[in-house]
């Protein structure tokens, strides 16, 4: 890796100051994305500012019944927080189905949202990649793209957003809290992840040196009956081929409330609004589920090896909704 200088920030202001003053610097949290990318020259900052000592790892109650997750809280700690498990089980499941225990102990949840794509061309500095090197073309569109996205793609980039946590968070309408040189901001999660469009190098609206300080989960009673379903080639330690975060309530066999989001198939954690519209108020039947899944995937664009993901995503949605309906029916 390129020679890099390293310092440890002890307070938030100093961390933000250090990074925003130097365009060639970056925050270092758990390092599970950052260090990998340094080693393969995909990211080449000259200076790393370690933020692990910042007091941003707590999980707190918000007035009104929500939870605030500190940006530096570790994936493993968040997944075990009893209140989170009780009120937002899909978040805990999304975390536990991600990465490996070793990684989850290191990785922070802010870092999880900020992680870079797993597209192998992005990681191969000798390959063309619009995201890594704008204007060099997308090698994946006609290449090895089994893991790539079918929703939210553009002719510039089709890389799947890899985060599982993000999928649960978009279903919940979480809010990302940041602090930067210009002060603090609250960014609705759906606006936090950008579609690639013609600027795939822009993945989020943060300015350089802006720090993710926390993630707010709003009060949402339906989230207590929620699941995260993840389909992948091996049982553990792998990213999703398709995943579904779902919260649903059913009264008299009708869906009264529904939150649905998809992972593994889209360029950002994908709120399935089209499906939600069709499901809201619909009978909780496989027919409704299938219709909603088909509508959500209607705009999907395949690119060869990943064609199967369209059908896989549909079936995974139906599976997830059926699981919820059964559970709702029996309780």
């Amino acid at each position, binding site marked *: *890796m390129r020679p890099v200088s390293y310092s440890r920030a002890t307070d938030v202001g100093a961390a933000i100051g250090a990074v925003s003053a130097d365009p060639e610097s970056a925050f270092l949290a758990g390092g599970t994305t950052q260090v990998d990318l340094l080693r393969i020259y995909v990211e080449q900052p000259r200076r790393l500012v370690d933020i692990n000592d910042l007091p941003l790892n707590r999980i707190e109650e918000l007035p009104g019944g929500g939870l605030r997750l500190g940006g530096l809280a570790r994936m493993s700690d968040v997944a075990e927080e009893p209140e989170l498990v009780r009120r937002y089980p899909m978040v805990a499941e999304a975390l536990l189905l991600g990465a490996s225990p070793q990684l989850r102990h290191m990785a922070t949840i802010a870092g999880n949202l900020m992680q870079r794509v797993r597209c192998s061309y992005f990681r191969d500095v*000798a390959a063309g990649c619009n995201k890594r090197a704008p204007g060099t073309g997308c090698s994946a569109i006609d*290449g090895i793209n089994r893991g790539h996205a079918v929703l939210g793609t553009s002719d510039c980039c089709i890389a799947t957003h890899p985060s599982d946590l993000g999928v649960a968070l978009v279903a919940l309408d979480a809010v990302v809290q940041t602090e930067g040189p210009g002060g603090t901001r609250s960014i609705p999660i759906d606006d936090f992840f950008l579609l690639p469009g013609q600027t795939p190098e822009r993945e989020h609206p943060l300015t350089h040196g802006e720090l993710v300080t926390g993630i707010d989960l709003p009060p949402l009673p339906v989230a207590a009956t929620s699941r995260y379903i993840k389909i992948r080639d*091996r*049982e553990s330690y792998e990213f999703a081929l398709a995943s579904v975060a779902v919260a649903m309530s059913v009264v008299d066999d009708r869906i009264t409330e529904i939150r649905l989001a998809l992972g593994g198939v889209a360029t950002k954690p994908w709120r399935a609004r089209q499906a939600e519209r069709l499901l809201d108020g619909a009978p909780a039947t496989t027919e409704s589920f299938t219709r909603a899944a088909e509508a959500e995937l209607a705009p999907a664009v395949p690119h060869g090896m990943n064609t199967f993901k369209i059908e896989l995503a549909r079936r995974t949605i139906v599976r997830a909704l059926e699981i919820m309906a059964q559970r709702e029916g029996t309780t």
Partner: protein
Amino acid sequence: MSPAIGATLNRVDGRFKVRGESRYSAEVPVPNLTHAVVVNAKIASGRITAIDTSEAERAEGVLAVLTHRNLSPVATVPKLLPSLAGLAAPGQSFFPMQDETIHYAGQPVAIVVADTIERADHAGTLIRFEYAPTPATTLLDQARDQAYVPERIFGGLLPGHASRGDVAKALAEAEVCVDTTYRFAPNHHNPIEPSASTAVWEDADRLTVYDSTQGPNSVQFTLAELLGLPPISIRVVSHAVGGSFGSKAMVWHHPALAALAARHVGRPVRLVLTREQMFTSCGHREEQEQRITLAAGADGRITALRHHKLSLTSPFDDWAEPSLQSPSVAYTSPNYEGIYHLVRGNTITPTFTRAPGEATGMFALECAMDELAERIGVDPLELRLRNYSATDPESGKPWSSSGLTECYQRAAELFGWHGRDPRPRSRREGQWLIGTGMASALYPVTQPVNPQRARARLYNDGTAVVEAGVSEFGTGVFTAMTQVAADGLGIPVERVRFVGGSSDLPNVTAAVGSAGTSAVGSAVHLATTQLRDELIRRAVADDHSPLRGADPAAVQVRDGKMVLRDRPDVGETYADLMHRTFMPDVEVLGTWNPPPQDAGYGVHTFGAQMAEVAVDADLGVVRVRRMVGVFAPGRVLNRKTAHSQLMGGMLWGLGQALLEATRMDPRMGRWANASLGDYLVPVNADAPDVVVDTIEVHDEVVNPLGMKGVGEIGVVGVAAAIANAVHHATGRRQYELPITLEKLL
């Protein structure tokens, strides 16, 4: 035989490993050390037209930047020869950095030596290359029409085609015929320890290389040729090796590159391959396609087997993993035709990869057998029994030992095979379709050619050190050798220390082809039993010994004490005899001359595999629920390590079936998933309930201890058993590995 052999002895090196005290080749402390990093070609074919090393040379800590322009050329480039032959064993008949031509992506084009590995790595990215690329072939589909039939494959050791009887006639007359083609993704080994070499020139003509290898002597002989030095100038040491699976079976470029770089900078050089480089520097299992045509009577008796393979090889060698060998002798078949077809491509020469050949060839045959069983309405196990061959169908000679039918029977009992409903999709549990499948496992017993040697030295306190040049790459061979030595000498295992891992020690062949333990074990057995006999002889000839005048054949040794077999109270210890006669130690070199491969017997290891899978009816996800493997590997030296080997093999078979694939991007001619995050191997969560058992067979032919090897037989047949189970669950035949979920949606 005393009880040490076959016992469950914990690994003698286990304690050091779990405490992090084992020294791998990249960890041996060496004063004044420098670090080398290899830079690889990014194009797959063409020429280097310009190189600018100036920036790299100026980078901090850099000692040398070597390219074909300033690296001293190698003396000779030896021809590929499998390391089992005991001679120089380069992985390919090519050595890089001799000129500007690029034959494959990943070919080394420069070496940077610096004071730290990070600085060397960074400086490597500062070298500017200009290339004139030419069109490359990296997929079979790009050059099928250029396939040829090689006269010989596998470094010249095996024929490129073989036949017996009249296949065309048998096919024309067949009552049933199954004709299918199977495709296999390339596979990489992915041991946890990347290959590493540390080269230290003690003086101008004395080189020590610490190398991660399956055969220190192979490295020594290969380096001697490449560097133009006599073998006496080269010592290769391999204290501990973190797995190999074939990636360290042959000698690749890095030890020689480390030695050349070390000579250039005049300091010791450590060269560690990166994980990504492990995908382009040590060979792989080649992309291939196999067509099986089975002709049979209505009763399922096979009348002909035709087995054709098409695979990609390098510009340098006619390499194909020998997929046709085991299938050709698995069942009686009076008519047979096996042909290898090769296509030359821009790739490093492929190499041994866990059960090289058998893993793919037996997959093809055993899936076709399952189809035949379905076609004629016979239980798959019954079909195999009907076609069981009590002799080697190739030569007509008897098997040295078999045990195959007992393996089937035992596996069926352990698995609960009998009473299986053969109809596909006949079992369902909720969303899961359940299926079971089976396959035979065969692996050839390959003999080394050169004499295998080991030295045993007994000290006058009754402890012994036993030495041979074998390296420990995770198989448990040091542990098993401790047991063989203890048995041979008649002393407890605690009094034996086995030392291996250096070319200075008595020469044994590289531990490959599942033959490593039996090769070195035979030598250790001979060394230690000859040493024991020598001391018995001295005792009976010594006037002061209680054994004086006894018939040596009537003496046995227990717990270090030589006693009369029928009067165990009469005798004395080795220590007593040696002290009394002023012997500090006694030493014997044992030499085992392996029998010729064609010794009047068919020699193969046999086994049976069974698997149960659950397939998600909607989502296509396949999960293996349980596997049973029963094998007849001859004498088992250590139940624990042998079972671990067999179980590990079965899990690799699971990986081959469901997960493992290296993906080539033909536009760049490079692998697109060269990392452990993208090349999937099974993790613990994928490991089902695995039952391993062995059937005892006595084999007087293969070697003095009757061992046939447990290294790779465990892999063979697993993928077929799983694919057959997937068919049973879903009704869908699988013709391509790995079986990923999109094939079942």
